[in-house]
């Protein structure tokens, strides 16, 4: 029976485990213990790594990479909105949602890789500042949550069967959750610039 549950509800069980781990981390104050240990890494990232050196020495390189980060986030936004508005039945209603989901996911994956790579560069240039910013950590958590949600819950579910067989409310919830989580990633990213 246990193996049956694990096979049929792998994503749900995975999510439950992740939530449990987060809960335990908070309960046993692991996060508070890890936080100071991370500071030397952030200092190294800014003052000793080559990306930190590039970012702090050449303002034009830093700004160009920032622009790349913005563009990749725009493509992520486009892919997420097109997919999720289709799942909600708002856009592209005459095209099968399976086709849209499959087509935009490729675009999403590549943009996410570019966004993470350029994001690391941008963070390295101001690593000693972002370390102290709560909004930076919120963004990292939102990014982690968004990526896990996308690769372990949303895509596996949408690829598992024809979309007519999925409960309509499940599809709507998936779409709304996806829009909200990626909006949070983008909005917190913007807010880092104001802090």
């Amino acid at each position, binding site marked *: 029976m246990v193996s049956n549950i694990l096979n049929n509800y792998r994503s749900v069980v995975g999510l439950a485990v992740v939530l449990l781990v987060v809960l335990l981390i908070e309960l046993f104050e692991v996060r508070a213990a890890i936080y100071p240990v991370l500071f030397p890494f952030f200092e190294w990232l800014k003052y000793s790594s080559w990306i930190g050196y590039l970012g702090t020495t050449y303002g034009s390189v830093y700004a160009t990479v920032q*622009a790349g980060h913005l563009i990749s986030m725009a493509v992520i936004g486009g892919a997420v909105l097109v997919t999720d508005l289709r799942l909600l039945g708002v856009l592209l209603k005459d095209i099968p949602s399976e086709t849209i989901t499959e087509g935009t996911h490729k675009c999403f994956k590549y943009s996410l890789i570019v966004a993470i790579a350029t994001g690391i560069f941008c963070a390295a240039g101001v690593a000693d500042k972002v370390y102290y910013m709560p909004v930076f950590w919120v963004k990292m958590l939102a990014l982690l949550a968004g990526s896990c949600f996308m690769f372990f819950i949303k895509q596996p579910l949408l690829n598992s069967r024809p979309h007519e067989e999925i409960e309509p409310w499940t599809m709507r919830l998936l779409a709304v959750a996806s829009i909200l989580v990626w*909006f949070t990633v983008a909005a917190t990213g913007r807010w880092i610039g104001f802090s």
Partner: protein
Amino acid sequence: MINELLLQFAQWLEGQEYSQMLVSGYYSWNWLEATHVLTLMVSIGSLFIIDFRMLGWILPDVPATKIADRLHKPMIIGFVIMFITGILLVYAKPVENVQSLWFRIKMLLLVFAFINAWVFNSRMRAAEGTWDSARVAPKPLRAGAIISLCLWCTVVAMGRFIPYDWVDCPKVSNTAILWAAGCVNELNAL
């Protein structure tokens, strides 16, 4: 002459109460800028999906004009919000923007991007039905899509460069750059 007129107009705008209110309010400025940047996801996000389809990179089995038609509305909504917030951002800091080389290049590129969009749209309508099911659009439309991608990427980059001060008027001595950036006082002092 044109630089002097632009600067006078910008100084007049900057003297207005609402302009001062926008720039001095921490939240008004941040909300405006955040909305301007976040709407990129709707406007440029939709536009890039259309361009990628024209190039055959994504959704090759879906008719390209169908994608362009259906994403037209959200894209336009995104651009309208971006322009409104963009105009307000300029209104909040008119002198700084009028004397920014990056801002001027951005405006020029925006004009090119809209001409390209208009030509692209006309060509797409003219060729409608002849290639719709093809995985890749005809060469002129592909060229239009690549020009669109390049122009908008550069527009975003120029927008990102505006807050940086590498070519701010007091830091530049090159006459051509001073003229291009509209640094009236520095040019007069030469």
